[in-house]
């Protein structure tokens, strides 16, 4: 099994180098991943689509391809092209009327064994204000969220900076290429109560106490003249309510440590 696999890898690698060299001229060296063979490496690509219209009616077009790599730690990369002249103009126009810039990705299951099981019907959508997109010079942060089983459940997009201040943006320089930060996030495991650590700490403390009991003892012996008036003062101030008793109890507990 190992032998054919490794041979395949070499083949694919060679194809890959060919492909990337082919795309170099039009894609600034970024790889565009439409290679079907890639899927066998537990990674596959889905389109990332965007939409920005002056009348705010969604009309999604392909922005790039997301390459998702399943596995214990899923990873994602993105290959995308520049905005065309027409798109740049449209984006600025949409930004001027405070329209929305929307993106969507199809729902997929990362951990599926077969390609057919991966795609599920429906899309996940998110948006950002078009002016924020323009003013941040197309620097966006896209995050894909998965659930425990590896289903893609949500996508979010923010731009950095996120504000619309109405600053001037130059077409050719600033709106040329996307500067995308992409990440995929699986749910974190929420911590349970930390009993083990607590017990360990308690043990350590008792051990410490056991080691130099004299120091512990001399502590009260040293400072009793401060403690007694304080206790008296507290008792006086809280004499009417049961909080005095609670305070005493707290002191006793503290003293025990």
């Amino acid at each position, binding site marked *: 099994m190992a032998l054919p696999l490794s041979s395949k890898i070499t083949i694919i690698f060679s194809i890959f180098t060919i492909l990337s060299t082919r795309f170099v001229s039009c894609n600034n060296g970024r790889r565009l991943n439409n290679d079907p063979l890639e899927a066998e490496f537990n990674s596959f690509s889905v389109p990332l689509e965007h939409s920005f219209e002056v009348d705010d009616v969604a009309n999604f077009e392909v922005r790039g391809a997301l390459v998702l790599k399943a596995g214990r730690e899923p990873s994602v990369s993105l290959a995308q092209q520049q905005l065309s002249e027409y798109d740049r103009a449209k984006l600025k126009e949409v930004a001027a009327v405070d329209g929305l810039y929307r993106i969507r990705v199809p729902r997929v299951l990362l951990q599926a064994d077969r390609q057919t099981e991966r795609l599920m019907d429906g899309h996940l959508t998110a948006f*950002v204000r078009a002016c924020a997109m323009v003013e941040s010079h197309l620097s966006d942060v896209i995050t894909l969220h998965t659930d425990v089983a590896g289903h893609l459940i949500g996508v979010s997009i923010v731009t950095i900076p996120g504000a619309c201040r109405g600053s001037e943006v130059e077409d050719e320089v600033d709106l040329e290429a996307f500067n995308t930060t992409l990440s995929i996030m699986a749910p974190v495991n929420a911590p349970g109560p930390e009993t083990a650590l607590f017990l360990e700490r308690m043990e350590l403390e008792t051990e410490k106490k056991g080691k130099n009991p004299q120091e512990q003892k001399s502590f009260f012996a040293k*400072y009793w003249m401060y403690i007694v008036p304080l206790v008296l003062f507290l008792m006086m101030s809280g004499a009417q*309510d049961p*909080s005095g008793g609670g305070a005493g109890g*707290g002191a006793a507990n503290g*003293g025990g440590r």
Partner: protein
Amino acid sequence: MAKLIFLWLKCLVSCCIVEAVFEDQVGKFDWRQQYVGKIRFSHFDSHVQSSKKVLMATEKNVFAALNTRTGELFWRHVDKTGPEGNIDAFLLHGQDALLVVGNGRLLRSWDISVGGLNWEVVLDSGSFQSACLIGQQDTVKHVAVLKKTVISVHYLSNGHQKWIENLPESENIDYQALYSGGNGEVYVLGIVPHSHIAIVVYSMEDGEIIKQTSVEAPWLSNIQTSCAVVGQGMITCVDSLTMSLYTLDMHTQSKMTQIPLQVCSYTNSKPYTKAELLIISNLNHDLKHCDYLVIYYLGCNTACSLSLFNAETGRRLLDTTQFLSIDPNVGKPESIYVQAFLKKDDSVSYRVLVQTEDHTLTFIHLPGRVMWTREEALSEVVTMEMVELPLTGTQAELEGEFGKKADGLLSMVLKRLSSQLILLQAWVSHLWKLFYDARKPRSQVKNEISIENLSRDEFNLQKMMVMVTASGKLFGIDSKTGSILWKQYLNNVPSNAAFKLMVQRTTAHFPHPPQCTLLIKDKDTGLATLHVFNPIFGKKSHITPPALTQPILQSLMLPLMDQDYAKVLLLIDDQYKVTAFPSSKNVLQQLQETASFIFFYLMDSSQGRLSGYRLRMDLSTEQIWEVIIPTEIQKVVTVKGKRSNEHVHSQGRVMGDRSVLYKYLNPNLLAVVTESTDVHQERSFIGILLIDGVTGRIIHEAVQRKAKGPVHVVHSENWVVYEYWSTKSRRNEFSVIELYEGMELYNSTVFSSLDRPHAPHVLQQSYIFPSAISAMEATLTEKGITSRHLLIGLPSGGILSLPKMFLDPRRPEIVSEQSREENLIPYAPELLIRTEWFINYNQSVSRVRGIHTAPSGLESTCLVVAYGLDIYQTRVYPSKQFDVLKDDYDYMLISSVLFALFFATMISKRLAEVKLLNRAWR
């Protein structure tokens, strides 16, 4: 020295969180009302002639005894909720009450005089049909329980089983009823619907079948609902179609005899809506000479009549007819329980306990005198709001002066003078009242609160509690005393309705009355109606709400106000069209202006789809984001936003090194809780998603493994607290998530979900909680300065006020100088329940379903209402009463000290002057 500081810190901590009531404060700021729920079975205690008990078993699995004179509870037993504690049958014999509980699982005997349990036995499995007492030579010593296929007989004294027999098997006979005539035989009645009745007779001694017969009864479909056995083995059935009684003597006859009822004396042109046989047997011993009595009532739309009939002849007894007028505020009678007795002149009289559609219990003496009423609908409060009381007339007058437009200098002056005069008048009358009251003994001076003299108190501590109950009845309750000030029954509420109560206009906008809107939605069809009313008087508003023809998906209260200061309510229907209420021109214009900033979300938990929409100018909507949580893995159980009336006073927390950690205060944040569909204890989990409701951005996604629901969530400020059951450790655990922006704020002036690119820091910590919980809410105060507490309703009936300080993910594992500086309590995995944290001391609140908190006019004080089977209202002071002088504050001491100081300064000044003068002369 460090140890010392730590110790005192602990002392201080325990000092400032200890709170409890003093003995003399019991009942001063709090009250509790206990309810039983809707009656299922009820019997009057006829054991002793002078007894004033009525016993009832209710739909809420409560067994209780009420005082028939006052309607107050003697005692009450609350069983488990759901089918496990369901009361199937209730028999009363002398001092013993027998209950069959949990679909024939348990047989219990109670002593009704004190409400103690005599004995309890576990019955064999099988679905329960009927139970009856078995008499033998005028004494009752046994009880028989009929199940689907089995009949068993038990001793009344100790519950032991005497014998158990299988019923004769037959395909289509449905055994439904039991009867014993007191001659050592047990009759089991079975029915083949619309065909015949089968009667099986068992011997009481050994359970042998003596006789089996069958009787034709083609008009009968169910024995339990339309038949009863009276006297010596006389089956009496009512056929409401032909308006006649059928009788059959089981010992002798084999055919039923028909007796048409005399109902012609009742003349009313309106059609009868209900004719029912109510009570036949189980009468007082004194009534033996008039063998059977039938009480029959005819219901119709405006009134209903009750009368006693003789069962043998079908003749109506004289002077026993009474008319019950049906209050439109109460609904129609649902069931009636009659206590018949003989008067001194040997004529028959009776008292009736009427339960109406709105679950009100009314106890009526024969001439129609209402002895007491109980609002049992309050045992099922669904939602509630607390509304501020209006100003008094004089205050309102003053307010009105400023509210009106200026019309000339002179008239303004006159107006001012007149209002000052009114104020003076009010003050004088107030003084006079004080003087007058002072002469009376303390106990007599009890201000009766009525709807007329309702007014806001100095600190806004008294509010109107508007409660919505499942039966569709609304209540207005005074929060200070708990007295019901108004009630309104909505009789068109579907049985499976969901309610949402919103305050559209508070009392703050004087000339305009306060306005509440109740959204009533049928859960099946999604169709909704709006009920608009004045929360202070309960009156329906004259404003006509929009007609809603489409199912409603979501409702949304906007901070926008129309020209009459009513907040705008948006209703989104299933076509994603938006209806605004009120929908005046002003509102529509405002909506058009702000449309692009109005976002809302919809949750479809059946598909796991959470989607966001934005309002358009033409009141249509567009979808802008979508998150889909696959339902095959987990299902969404709760979506919880923040409360709109919540204020956060401090933007951040001061750290030990004097830097500030800023809170992530996103008002649009939603906490979405999911539960896994896989219930295996190793694989089940609970998911927590924090989603921005405007942008759909998932702020945080966490999974609590090996955990299952039910999950209780509280979402407030920058934290989410949730409680779950840990399947691994088999215990309840609390978890807290806090969100922080970090050491600097991104935009300190305003929060916008659209412009907050950096994800917050998420801190989380979990704790063990030693009890299950039934409801949870956080305290709420006017300005949010007071520290927060969590109010936790426990199944034991206690309401715990747990300081949020203990649920703080920054509690350090290892104590450092900085954490000490910050007053952080060192981490301990277990949260202890301290008895002084119970805010309801010994006033247990059964089955708490919800806790409502409302701010008062005092920053230190939060009003709390816990509702479930009972209602409990109290006040809590999470940071103690820092803005109030204590009740026993020593005014004498402080004023004498002040005066003394004043005189001392005067004298010393004088002395100093003299001394200066002398020095100048020298």
